C-alpha cells in the first residue's frame, strides 16, 4: 500500500559522508535507511521550476521516497510505502 503525501512534508535527514541520506526523521520517528536508487528531476523551468534529487530509500519499517529540493536545500517526504 502506498501513501502519497500531498503536501510533501519537510523532514530532517542525516547525511553520510558522500552527501546521501543515511537516516531521516518523520512523525517523531527516526529511522536509519539505505539508498536503493536515486535520480534527478528538473522540470518546468519555464513556469514553476522544479529541481530535485530523488532518493528511494529502505529502512527497517519504511520504504520511502525522499527528495532534496535543490532550489532551497530542504528535504521532503513524497511517498511512503507500507
Amino acid at each position, binding site marked *: 500500500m502506498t501513501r502519497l503525501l500531498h503536501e510533501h512534508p519537510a523532514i530532517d535527514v542525516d547525511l553520510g559522508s*558522500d552527501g546521501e541520506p543515511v537516516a531521516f526523521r518523520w512523525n517523531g520517528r527516526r529511522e536509519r535507511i539505505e539508498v536503493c*536508487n*536515486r*535520480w*534527478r528531476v*528538473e522540470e*518546468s*523551468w*519555464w*513556469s*514553476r*521550476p522544479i*529541481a530535485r*534529487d530523488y532518493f528511494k530509500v529502505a529502512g527497517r519499517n519504511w520504504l520511502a521516497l525522499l527528495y532534496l529540493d535543490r*532550489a*532551497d536545500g530542504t528535504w521532503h517526504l513524497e511517498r511512503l510505502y507500507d
Partner: protein
Amino acid sequence: MAYAELHCHTNFSFLDGASEPDELVARAVELGLSGLAVTDHGGLYGVVRFATAAREAGLRPVIGVEIELADAAVPDPAGVVIPVGRPRRRVGGAASGRSPAGSAAGAAPLPDARRGEGLPARPRPDRTRLPDYRSSVKEDLRGVGEGQRGPHLVLLARNAAGYRSLCRLVSRANLAGTKSMPRFSHALLAENTDGLVALSGCREGEIARRLRFGDREGARAAAERYARLFAGQHAQSDSVASATFFLELQHHLLPDDDWLVAETARLAEELSLPVVVGNDVHYAYSEGREMQDVLSAIRHGRSLGELRDLRRPDGESFLKAADELMALPPGNSDADAHTAAAWAQGIGNAGELAASCSVDLGFERYRFPGFPIPKGHTPFSYLEELCHEGARRRYHPISSTVLSQLAHELDVIERTGLAEFFLICWDIMRFSRERGIPAQGRGSAANSIVAYVLGITRVDPIRHHLLFERFINEGRASYPDIDIDFSSARREEVIQYVYSRYGPEHTGMVCNLVTYRARSAVREVGYALGFPRPLVDRVAKALETYDSVMVRRDLEADGGFGGFFADTVDREAAAAGASNKRGLTDRTGRLNHPRHWAADDKGGPGDSPASAIRLAGRPGRGSGLHSNPAQSRPQTLRGSTVGMSEWERWLAFCARIDGFPRHLSIHSGGMLVTAAPLIDIAPLERATMADRVVVQFDKRDVETLKLIKLDLLGLGMLAAIDETLGLIESDCAARVDLDRLPEDVPEVFEMLGAADTVGVFQVESRAQMQTLPKSKPADLDDLVVEVAIIRPGPIQGNAVHPYLRRRQGLEPVSYLHPSLEPVLRETLGVILYQEQVMQIAISVAGFSAGESDGFRRAMGTWRSNKEMEKLHARFVDGCRAANGLTDEQAEELFRQVAAFASFGFAKSHAAAFARTAYESAFLKLFYPAQFTVGLINAQPMGFYPVEVLINDAKRHGVAVLQVDVNASSYKTTTEWVGRDGEPGYEEARHGQRPPVRSSGCIVPSAESRARWTPESATGFGIRLGLALVKGIGDEHAERLDAELARGPYATLTEVVTRTELPEEVIERLIRAGALDSLGRPRRELLWQLREVMGATRGRTGRAAGQPMDLRLPPTPAPELPPLTERERLGDSYAVLSLDARRQVVSIFRPALERLGAATNASLADRGPGPVRLGGLVVTRQHPMTARGTVFLALEDETGMVNVTLWPDAWARLRGVVRRHALLYVEGTLQREAAVVNVIASDIKPLPAVAESVGGPSHPEGVRALGYSGMHRG
C-alpha cells in the same frame, strides 16, 4: 587524468544542440579537456568550424557523426531496436521513380564530336547521378520521440581514411534517404568502415535498447556484430589506440542509469570490449538545457508545456570535466567494484582514444578537376596562348604596359599553380558566349588583365589602374575567387553545363546555412514558449530588424509593446545616448551592437487586447515564486532564464538563438569543382530543388578547406539588359553593341547628375539619388567612385560627406598624414576602395603585400577580437615606426580603415558595376520603353516596384497601356503607339492624358537622338503583360500567348474557355480592366462571370478552344451603375498594385490643393521652408548606418521625393507610417545643391486628411496598394 568528450552535439545538429562549436571548444579548454569530438546528427555540417576553433584553442578535435540506423545489427523479432507501428506521415506528394528524361539527358555525356575540343575525360562518363540516388520524399517527424526512431551509433574518424568513410557514408545515406532524413543501413555501414571508430551510443543505441528491454543475449550478439564489423580484417585489438569499437557508458542521473552502466560494463568485460565514458553533450553549460528544451519544442512544433517526454528527461547533458564525471554514482565508492573500475577506465580511454584520432582537413591537392588541354601543352602554356590571343583582341595596339602586366600576372599564376582555375572560368565564359547568355565577371577578378583578355571580365585593369595583388598574391593563405554574373533568367543553363562537364561526382553546390534572424526567432521561440499565435504574429510583424539580438529595440519602440518594457525604456534610451556619443562604432570600428542588456525589468501592462488577455490569464506571473536572489539577476545571453518575466524570457531566447543554423539551402551560386571525387572530400546531401545536390559545407568552410569555388550568380540587370537589346533589335531593327559603346555620351552623365536614375543599375537607390546631384559624375571614373561610395562602409567610415564636399569644392583636399597622399589622391583623400586599404597597410603601416591582404580580410570578417587586437597593435606600431604618425593619427587611421573594411567594395568590383550602370543609364535615356519592359520582366530585382518604373517611364513621355486580354501577352511588351504629333497618336494612347513631366526628367535632345537611336525608337509604348495580374504565373504563359496569337476574344465565355484560368483570376482580369476590350461594362461582366464559369465547368480542357455550344445565353445583367473613377483606380491597385492611366495620389489632388500641399515636381523650384505633401510610400528604409533615422520615398503623380524621419519623429509617427501607404506629410523642405529633402514633423493617413476637407475618402483597394514595395531596400 586526460579526458576527452567524444559524444557531443553542437547546434549543427539542427535544433538538437544548444551551443555553438566555438562555445563548446572554449568551455572544453576551460575544463581542461584534452580533446573534444563533434558528433552531430547525420551530418558533418559543423566540423570545419569546429576543427578550426579547436585548433586555434589548442584542443584536439575529433571528427565524427551520430547516425540513426534504419535496421538492427542482429535480428530483432520483438521490435526492440526498430520500433514497429510508428505511423509514417509523409508531407506532400511522394515523388517516386526517376525524374523525367529531360534532366537526365541534360546531364548526359556530351557527344564524342566535342571531345576533341578539350573536354575533360570524366572518370565515369556513364554516370549521370551519384550512386544510391533516390528521389526525395519528405517525412514529418514532429512529435516522434527518439525512442520511436532508429537506434543511434556514434562514428569517429581516426584518420584521413576515416574522414573519407564518414563523407561517403553521410553522402550515400543522404542520397538514399529523404531531405534532412538520411537513411543509414547496416549494409551501407559495412561498406564504409575504413578508418572509423564506433561507440555504442547513448541509451538509444542498439545495445542499450536491448539491455533496457531485458534482451541481454541480443545485446551481446549486437555488440559482437559491431565489433566484427569495425574490426575489418584485423581482430579487435586490446589497445585503445587501435581498438575500433567501444561500449559507451553514460550517466545522466536517471533512475535506471546506475543499472544500465553496470550492465554495459559487465557486457564489456564478458566480451573483452573496451569502454569509453561520454556525456552525450548537447550544451556547454548546465543552463543550456533551457535553450535545448526550447529547440526541442521548435523541432516538434509544440510548446514547452506540451513537449512532455519529447524533452530530454535530464538537465545533465552539459560538458563535464573528468572529476565531475568521476563524482557521478558509478565512480562513487558505493558502486560495485567492476562498475567503478570500468567507469574510471572509460574516462581514461576517452582521452586516449581522442589522442589516437587525427584528421587533416586540408584538401589543396584535390583542387582542380583536371582541365583537358590540347596535345603538346601544359595548362599554363595553354593559358598563356589564350591570353596572348585575347590581348590581340582587346588591345589595339598592344602597349608595353599591357605586355609587362600580362607577363607579371602570368608569372604569378604559374607560381601559384592556378592556370587550370583560369581555364575553367574561361571555358564557362566561352560556353555562355556561344549560347548567348549574358555574363560578366565581377569582384576582385576584375583586377586581373588575364581575366580581362580571357573575356571573363569586361573592365580594363590598365585603364582603371587596378591592383592585381587584391586578386592574387603569393602570400595569400586562401584562394582567389572569380565571381561571374549571368542573366538571372539563364544561369541554370550554365550550372547544368558545369555539372555535365565535370560530372556530378566532382561538382557540387556550396550550401547556404539558413540561420535564425529576428522574425524567425520571434515566431518560433514565441510558439515554443506558448504565446498565442495571433500575438506572436503581431509581434513578428512589428519588427524592423533582421537581427534577433535587436528585437528588444524594435518592440520597445513600437507603441503596442513598449509598455512591457516600460522600466527599461528610459535606461536604454540613456544608454543609447551614451553610445551615440561614442559613435556608432567602437574603438575597432565594429558596430556597437547592444548585445548585453541589464534585463531586470518585470514587464508591464500591455495595451493590446491579445496581450492583456494573455497576461490576465496568468495570475501567477512573476509572483514571488522565485525568491532566490541569485536567480533574480538573469543574464540575457547566458545563464538561466528562471525568474524572468515571460516577455523577458522571449527576448532572451531570441537573442540566444540568433545565428543558430536552422536548415540548409543552396548557396546563390557557389559551385565546388574538385579533382578527387567530391564524395571523398565533403559530405553531400540533397537539396530541396529536384536533382540538385549540395555540399554540407558553406562558403566559409570551403575556403578553410582550400577548395576552389566558382561563384555563378544570377543578376537581374543582365537579364533586363539582354531583353532590352532584344526588343531594340526587333522594334527598331537596330543593334546596340554595348562593348563598343563610347564611355563619354554627355547626356548620360547629365542624367546621372540630375539623379534621374530610377531603374539604373546600382545608382537608383535613395542614397545614390541624394548624392548624385552633389558628386555630378562627369566620366566613367567618377561613376566608379559613385558606385563604391554609397555603401555602409564609406558611410560609417565618415567618407561620404568629406568626399562630396571636396568634390563640390566646398572644402580643401587634405590628408590625415602626407604618406597617405599617393594612395588616396584619386578619391580626394578619403578611403573608398579595398585596394586602398591594402595600399595603406603596405605603404603607411609597413605590411608586406601578402600581409596587407590578410589584414584587409581580417578587418572584413571579424573572426575574433583577439586577432583584431593583434592587428590593431601591429598597424599602429607600424604607422608610427614607418612613417612617424602620432598615436592619435595612427588610431584614427585604424578606425577609418576598420570601419570601412567590414563593408568595403573592391575598386575592380565597382569598376565592373559602374560599366553596367553606365550601359543601363544609356538604355534608359535613349530607349526608355524597351528598357522599362526589360526591367519589368526581370522582376523581382532592383530597388523599386513595377509601379514606380512605369510612373517614371510615363514622366519620360512613354505611353503605358493597360492590361488587355486582346493585346497583352504574358510578359510585358513594347507596342507601337506612333510618335508625338503623328496622326492617330492620341487614339493609340487610349485617351491618356499627356504625361506630367517633372523638371528632373532628362530627355535627350533631337541631335543626340538622331545620333544614337533610329527614328522609330520614340514611337513605342509599354503594353503591360498579363503576368502582372496576381494569380497568373509561368504555368499559364504558353497558353495565354498561343491564344492571343490565335485571334481576339469576343466574349466572356471565350475568355473563360480559351484561357482556362480559374474564376478568381478572371475576376481580377475584369477588375483590372483587361476585359474592357470586349465592349461590355465591368459590372456586367462580373455579374455574368459566375454563370459562365458554371456553364463551362468540366468542359474546359476537353472543349477548350472549341466553339461553345451553350444552351442558354448568359442572363442579361440588370441596369448596374457604372464604375466610378475611384472604384476603377482602387480595383486596379488591388489587382495590379499599379494603374496604367494615373497615379493614385492624383485623385486626392483637389483635396491636397485645398490643404495647400505642393506637388513633388514643384519642390525642385521651391525654397527651403515649411511644406505639405501627399504621396504614396514606395520604399521605406531603416538603414543601420543612419542611427535610427527612417527614409521614405514618397511618390505622387509628378515625381518622387525623399522624406526623412529623425528618430524622435519616427518614434512618434511609426504607427501611422507602418500601417498606411498613402500619407499626408507636413514638414520642412531642405535643399543642398540640387538635392531636395523633406524633414517630416507630422504624418497622417492621406485619405483621412482628404476626407476632412471634403476630398475623396478611402477608395476600395487602395489599402493594399504600394505595400509590395514597402519592405524593400
